[in-house]
């Protein structure tokens, strides 16, 4: 299997590891991690740093009731875990091709989702995640489809799930995570053979003029 060539970058991985990235962006990063051993290692290291910082934390004394409440909870037996409480839905064969954690956000195989046309050769499924103006959606481009030239008014994270696309800066394939800010002016073209399916997170076109970090701090971070 080929490892991705485009990665989210250290700042975004740090935001993911320390928990400050909001859910839509965290979903893109985590799905990239399924494809990317290199970023998984970075995140593991950043989490180890978090563990060391927790060790260094000055202990805050507990109230006298805290321990008794704790042991009472152990005595009550194990609390049902949220995961266990959810009905277990086995993914269909089609869904098995969709990487986690994205798969757990879908209730039907990619082909059976409610795809809506947005432009020529381009369809979307809104995942209904996050708070406006952040949008998380799946995008499907027909083979050879051209996305009209555009710049970004904020930031866009785009993860290739199938097929691929290219623009003047490069070509992007399975697992590549492309982060574009408002300085990017591009005209993506879907691969001739297979077209392209992407997981895409953007903020709505606001008058945002800051760079990546500013966008993340305002929109994609919690």
């Amino acid at each position, binding site marked *: 299997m080929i490892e991705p060539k485009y990665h989210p970058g250290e700042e975004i991985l740090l935001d993911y590891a320390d928990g400050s990235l909001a859910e839509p962006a965290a979903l893109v990063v985590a799905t990239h991690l399924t494809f990317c051993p290199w970023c998984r290692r970075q995140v593991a290291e950043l989490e*180890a740093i978090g*563990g060391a910082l927790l060790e260094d934390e000055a202990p805050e004394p*507990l109230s006298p009731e805290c321990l008794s409440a704790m042991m009472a909870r152990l005595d009550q037996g194990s609390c049902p875990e949220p995961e266990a409480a959810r009905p277990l839905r086995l993914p269909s064969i089609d869904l098995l091709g969709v990487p986690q954690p994205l798969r757990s956000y879908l209730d039907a195989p990619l082909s059976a989702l409610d795809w809506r046309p947005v432009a020529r050769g381009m369809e979307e499924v809104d995942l209904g995640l996050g708070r406006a103006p952040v949008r998380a959606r799946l995008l499907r481009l027909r083979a050879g489809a051209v996305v009209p030239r555009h710049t970004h008014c904020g930031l866009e994270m785009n993860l290739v799930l199938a097929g691929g696309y290219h623009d003047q800066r490069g070509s992007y394939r399975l697992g590549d995570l492309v982060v574009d800010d408002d300085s990017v002016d591009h005209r993506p073209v879907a691969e001739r053979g297979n077209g392209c399916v992407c997981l895409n997170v953007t903020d709505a076109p606001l008058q945002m003029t800051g760079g990546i970090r500013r966008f993340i701090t305002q929109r994609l971070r919690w």
Partner: protein
Amino acid sequence: MVDAVPLDSPFAGAAACPWWHMRLAADVATLWAMLETGLTDRATQGRNLDELVLAVARERSRPAFGALFGHFAPRMKSYLMRLGTDAGQAEELVQEVMLLVWNRAETFDPAQASASTWVFTIARNKRIDVIRRERRPEFDPNDPALVPQAAEAADRAIEAGQETARLRAAIGALPEEQAELLRLAYFDDKPHSVISAERGIPLGTVKSRLRLALDRLRRLLREPV
């Protein structure tokens, strides 16, 4: 007996609570045996925290859980209070995290992460779940779609159990302004621009200091001992 526990021991929190001994009367002998053999003191040194989690996993050991609680609960409370929860909510969350430690101890793999790192990730996810009411998306190591790590890259320079101790020493050796920014990044949800404004440090400096700190710690993790 309670008073004999030194205040700086991992049992400091427990010692403040007479109930501890009522409840765990049957385990007191074991606890004292642990204290006398120094197991609880050494528990702060990484390796033995791992062993305590493994003891919970294998034997449902309450003394081991008690030692983990005594060690981690006050630190997590401090972590959660930095993130803006009040003392009551922080304790409530600490209990939920420790309940997950109890219930999921079997999933702890000391080859993958140290106990401190494992607890940090559980606490991080719990606060996202409870305070932000969001899901925490994470990859699944058993996903058939997972692209495996190349074999030669898989070996770690340091054992996970040694990692925390080495990292702490390295964080302690960082210039104070770098260590402080590192703590702010992990333990405050504040964006870098806000840190920059509050501290009167240019944003570029905030980022470069953070990067220097992370580079140094990363190098350490990748260096053979």
